[in-house]
C-alpha cells in the first residue's frame, strides 16, 4: 500500500462507519470496558468513528468523568444547607467554585492533582500541574493571584526520592515564578507509601468582581468557537497512538511522548490576554484545555450551553503536521484556551490576541440543536450529543469492602504496643529536638526559598505562617487566607476521622492567622477504585468531610479526585488534601505564627487528651503506626476559631500557632523560631487539669488547640473572650529575650540548636 492510500484509509468518517459497521476497535486498549463500548454503540445507534471513540475514551476516563467517585461526591451538594450556600456564587460542577467575600468581590480557588505525570517526569509534571489549575481559575473570569502546592514524596532517604524532589520543586518554582503568582503555602511530607507514586497537588486562587463572573457555556447560535494560545502538539497523548496503530494497517503506532511540556511564558501571556478579553467584553465564555484537550473543551462547552456546536478540526494550528485527527482531539498540549466569541466582537478579539502575540484560530460556531459535529477536511468524523460525552458518562457503584486489617491496626495503639514514654526532662528535650529535625516537621525553607512570595505586592502572610494570606482590595485591606492539610497516617487508621481532622486543621490554620473560614476545596488522593478496600476508604473520607463541613457550616466549592495512586499494588495512605479559604476584613489585623516581643503571656487554648496514636512522636521516636487517631471536636474548633478571629480583630493576639503534628512540643519550637524569640513554659497545670502525663502534654496531637501570645495588659479582656466562647484557656508560658526555650523543671533548649536541627534535614538529602 502506498503512503497516500494509507492516509486515506485512516479517516474513519461517520459515512465510513455505515460502510464498515463491524470493524473491531481498540476500545479496551483505550481504557474502555466492554460495557462502556456497548453503551457508546447504544447511544450512537452505530459503532463510533475512531475520532468519537477517542473522545469518549478520554472523557469517560476516571480522571475526566469521576465515574467511580460521583456517587459519593454528591454528598458535598446534598449536605450543603441553604445557610452554607449564602455566599456561594458558583458551586461544584464548574471549573472552580466562586465565593462572595463582600464589597462586590468574589474569589475562586481549587486544588488539583498532577501525581502520575510528576513521577514519570517530575519537573514537567509538576510545572504543568501548576499551569493547569491556573487555567481553571481564569476560565471563571478571575485574575489568578496566588498558588500553593501540596507534596508527598517517598522516604526521604530512598535513592529515588531526590530525583523526584528536585524535579517537582524545580518545576513548581519554574512555572509558578514565571507566571508571577506568589506561592503562599503548601505541605511537604515523606513516606514510603508514596515512593513510586508521589503526590503533587497544586492550588490556585483567583479574584474577580461579581459582575465579571463567567461560566464556561457555549451559548448564542452563530457565536464563534475559537482556539487560542499555544499550538497543538503531540504531547500528552498516551492512548491516541493506539488508535493510530489500529487505523494504519502497516507501520505501527506513531511514537508520541506521554508527558506534556510546559511553557510558562506562553501561559503568562495567555493570562494577560484572557483578562484583557474579559475587560473588553470580547468573549462570551472561555474554557481551559486540560486533560482530554479539545475533546473536553468542545463537549463541555456544548453540553453546558443551550445549543450544539460545529468544529472544523483541520483548522487547529499544529506544532506537528503529522498529527491525526484523533490525536488532535486527545492532545493535552498546554497553554491553550477555547473561547466563545460573538462574531461582532471577533475583530476586538483578534486585536487583543495580536497585541499579546497569541495565536488563534476560529474552529467553528455554536449551532442550533444539540449535536456536536466535527469535520476533518470537509468530512464528518464526529456527530454526537455532547452531554453523552461530557456529562452523562457512566456512573459506577464500585464494590466496597471493609478492610479486615484495620481492626488489627486500630488495636495496636501506643499503649497496647507498650511504647516507652518518659518523665525525664533530658529525654523529653531530646525527643523534641528529634521531632523538630524529622523529615515531615523540619524546616521547608529549602523548598519555599525557591518560590517567589513577593510578586504582586499583596502577600500578607506566607511560609512559615499557619496560612497564606493575600490582600484583595488595596483600599480597604480586605483579604483572604488559605491553608491546606491532610495527615495520611490518621487517614490510614480511620479515613472518616482522618478527613475530618484534615478539615479541622486547615480550618484552625486559617483561624489562627486571624481570618474567618468560609469555604472548602479538596483533592482526594487514593489508591485504585477497583480495590474494594480503597473504595471503602474513599467513601468514608468523603462522608467524613461532608459531615464535618456541614457542622462547621462551610461548603465544599470544588476539588478533584485522584485514584490509582499506588506503589505496585499497594495503595498510598488515603490522602484527602483539604483546603480552607477564610476572609479577613483588613489584612493589617493578620497574626503571625510566632511572637516578636518579650514579656507576652502565652496561653494554651483547648484541652489535651492522651492522644499519641498516629502521632509524629510515635512515628519519629518509635517508628510506629497504630491505634485510633485523635478525636474530632468540631464544636470546639468553631469556638476556638471565633476566639482567634475576634482576638485578632481586637488586636489582643500578637501571635498564634495551631497545634498539630508534633503537638505542643513542635508548636512551641516553631513559635519561637518564627522570629527568634525565646520563651519559658510550665506544664504542671496541663498535667493537673487534663490528667495527662508529660509525654502526652508535650506530644499528644489532640485537636482544637492553639497557642497564642497576648500582651499582659490585655489578659483580662482576652480571658473574658475565651470564657465567653467556652474555650478552655490556660496560661502556660511567657516570651523572653533569652534565645532559648525553657520548659521549667524539665529542660532548656537553645533556639540555635533547634534551628540547626530543623534546618539541616532537607539540605542533608537534597542540598
Amino acid at each position, binding site marked *: 500500500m502506498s503512503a497516500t492510500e494509507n492516509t486515506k484509509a485512516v479517516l474513519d468518517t461517520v459515512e465510513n462507519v455505515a460502510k464498515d459497521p463491524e470493524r473491531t476497535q481498540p476500545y479496551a486498549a483505550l481504557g474502555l470496558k466492554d460495557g462502556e463500548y456497548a453503551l457508546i454503540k447504544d447511544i450512537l445507534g452505530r459503532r463510533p468513528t475512531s475520532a468519537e471513540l477517542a473522545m469518549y475514551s478520554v472523557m469517560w476516563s476516571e480522571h475526566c468523568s469521576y465515574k467511580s467517585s460521583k456517587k459519593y461526591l454528591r454528598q458535598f451538594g446534598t449536605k450543603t444547607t441553604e445557610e452554607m450556600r449564602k455566599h456561594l456564587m458558583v458551586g461544584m460542577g464548574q471549573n472552580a467554585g466562586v465565593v462572595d467575600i463582600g464589597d462586590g468581590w468574589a474569589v475562586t480557588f481549587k486544588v488539583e492533582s498532577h501525581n502520575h505525570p510528576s513521577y514519570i517526569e517530575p519537573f514537567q509534571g509538576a510545572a504543568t500541574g501548576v499551569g493547569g489549575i491556573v487555567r481553571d481559575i481564569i476560565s471563571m473570569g478571575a485574575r489568578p493571584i496566588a498558588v500553593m502546592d501540596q507534596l508527598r514524596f517517598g522516604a526521604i532517604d530512598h535513592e529515588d526520592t531526590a530525583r523526584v524532589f528536585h524535579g517537582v520543586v524545580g518545576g513548581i518554582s519554574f512555572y509558578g515564578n514565571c507566571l508571577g503568582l506568589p506561592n503562599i503555602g503548601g505541605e511537604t511530607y515523606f513516606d514510603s507509601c508514596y515512593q513510586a507514586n508521589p503526590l503533587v497537588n497544586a492550588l490556585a486562587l483567583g479574584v474577580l468582581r461579581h459582575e465579571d463572573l463567567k461560566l464556561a457555556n457555549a451559548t448564542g447560535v452563530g457565536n464563534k468557537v475559537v482556539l487560542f494560545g*499555544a499550538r497543538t*502538539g503531540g*504531547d500528552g497523548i498516551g492512548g491516541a497512538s493506539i488508535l493510530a496503530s489500529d487505523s494504519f494497517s502497516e507501520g505501527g503506532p506513531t511514537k*508520541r*511522548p506521554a*508527558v506534556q511540556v510546559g511553557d510558562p511564558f*506562553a501561559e503568562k501571556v495567555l493570562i494577560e490576554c484572557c483578562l484583557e478579553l474579559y475587560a473588553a467584553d470580547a468573549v462570551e465564555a472561555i474554557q481551559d484545555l486540560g486533560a482530554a484537550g479539545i475533546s473536553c473543551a468542545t463537549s463541555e462547552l456544548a453540553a453546558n450551553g443551550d445549543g450544539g456546536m460545529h468544529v472544523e478540526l483541520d483548522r487547529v494550528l499544529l506544532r*506537528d503536521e503529522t498529527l491525526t485527527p484523533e490525536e488532535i482531539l486527545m492532545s493535552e*498540549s498546554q497553554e491553550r484556551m477555547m473561547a466563545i466569541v460573538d462574531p461582532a466582537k471577533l475583530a476586538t478579539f483578534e486585536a487583543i490576541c495580536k497585541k499579546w502575540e497569541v495565536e488563534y484560530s476560529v474552529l467553528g460556531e455554536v449551532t442550533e440543536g444539540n449535536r456536536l459535529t466535527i469535520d476533518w477536511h470537509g468530512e464528518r468524523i464526529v456527530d454526537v450529543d455532547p452531554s453523552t460525552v461530557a456529562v452523562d458518562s457512566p456512573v459506577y457503584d464500585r464494590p466496597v469492602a471493609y478492610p479486615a486489617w484495620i481492626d488489627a491496626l486500630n488495636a495496636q495503639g501506643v499503649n497496647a504496643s507498650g511504647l516507652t514514654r518518659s518523665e525525664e526532662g533530658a529525654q523529653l528535650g531530646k525527643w523534641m529536638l528529634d521531632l523538630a529535625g524529622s523529615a515531615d516537621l523540619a524546616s521547608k525553607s529549602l523548598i519555599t526559598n525557591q518560590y517567589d512570595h513577593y510578586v504582586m505586592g499583596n502577600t500578607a502572610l506566607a511560609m512559615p505562617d499557619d496560612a497564606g494570606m493575600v490582600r484583595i482590595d488595596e483600599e480597604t485591606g480586605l483579604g483572604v487566607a488559605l491553608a491546606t492539610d491532610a495527615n495520611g497516617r490518621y487517614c490510614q487508621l480511620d479515613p472518616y476521622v482522618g478527613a475530618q481532622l484534615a478539615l479541622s486543621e486547615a480550618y484552625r490554620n486559617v483561624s489562627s492567622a486571624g481570618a474567618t473560614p468560609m469555604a472548602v476545596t479538596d483533592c482526594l488522593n487514593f489508591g485504585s477504585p477497583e480495590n474494594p478496600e480503597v473504595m471503602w476508604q474513599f467513601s468514608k473520607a468523603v462522608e467524613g468531610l461532608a459531615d464535618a463541613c456541614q457542622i462547621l457550616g462551610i461548603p465544599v466549592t470544588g476539588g478533584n479526585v485522584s485514584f490509582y495512586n499506588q506503589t505496585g499494588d499497594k495503595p498510598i495512605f488515603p490522602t484527602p488534601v483539604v483546603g480552607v479559604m477564610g476572609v479577613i476584613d483588613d489584612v493589617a489585623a493578620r497574626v503571625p505564627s510566632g511572637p516578636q516581643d518579650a514579656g507576652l503571656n502565652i496561653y494554651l487554648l483547648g484541652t489535651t487528651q492522651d492522644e499519641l496514636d498516629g502521632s509524629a512522636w510515635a512515628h519519629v521516636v518509635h517508628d510506629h503506626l497504630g491505634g485510633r487517631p485523635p478525636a474530632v471536636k468540631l464544636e470546639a474548633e468553631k469556638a476556638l476559631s471565633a476566639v482567634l478571629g475576634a482576638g485578632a480583630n481586637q488586636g489582643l493576639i500578637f501571635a498564634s500557632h495551631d497545634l498539630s503534628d508534633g503537638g505542643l512540643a513542635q508548636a512551641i519550637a516553631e513559635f519561637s523560631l518564627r522570629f527568634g524569640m525565646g520563651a519559658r513554659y510550665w506544664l504542671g497545670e496541663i498535667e493537673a487539669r487534663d490528667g495527662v502525663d508529660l509525654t502526652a502534654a508535650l506530644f499528644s496531637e489532640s485537636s482544637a488547640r492553639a497557642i497564642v501570645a497576648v500582651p499582659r495588659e490585655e489578659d483580662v479582656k482576652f480571658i473574658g473572650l475565651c470564657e465567653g466562647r467556652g474555650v478552655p484557656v490556660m496560661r502556660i508560658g511567657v516570651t523572653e529575650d533569652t534565645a532559648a526555650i525553657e520548659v521549667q523543671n524539665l529542660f532548656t533548649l537553645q533556639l540555635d540548636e533547634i534551628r540547626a536541627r530543623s534546618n539541616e534535614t532537607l539540605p542533608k538529602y537534597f542540598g
Partner: protein
Amino acid sequence: MPTIVVEVMPKQELLDPQGKAVAAAIARKGISGVSAVQVGKRFEIITEGPVTAELLESVKALAEDFLSNAVIEDVVSIEVVE
C-alpha cells in the same frame, strides 16, 4: 586538551519554547527565510588525559541518563575533538 563534545537537542515532537522565542525575535529583526529554530545544549567535557575507550563509554552513558532527559531530549552527537 582532549575534549568530548556532547550535543543534546529537545525532541522534535515536543514544544521548544526557547526555539520559538528565538525564531520570533529573528523574524522581528527583519531576517526572513528562517522557518524554525531549536535550542539545545552543548557540553564540552575536558579530560585529564587521552580519551580512553572506557571513559568514552562512561560519558556515553552519562549523556543518555544525566546530561539529557530522555523523556524530552535526544543526544544528537558525541564526538572527541583534539
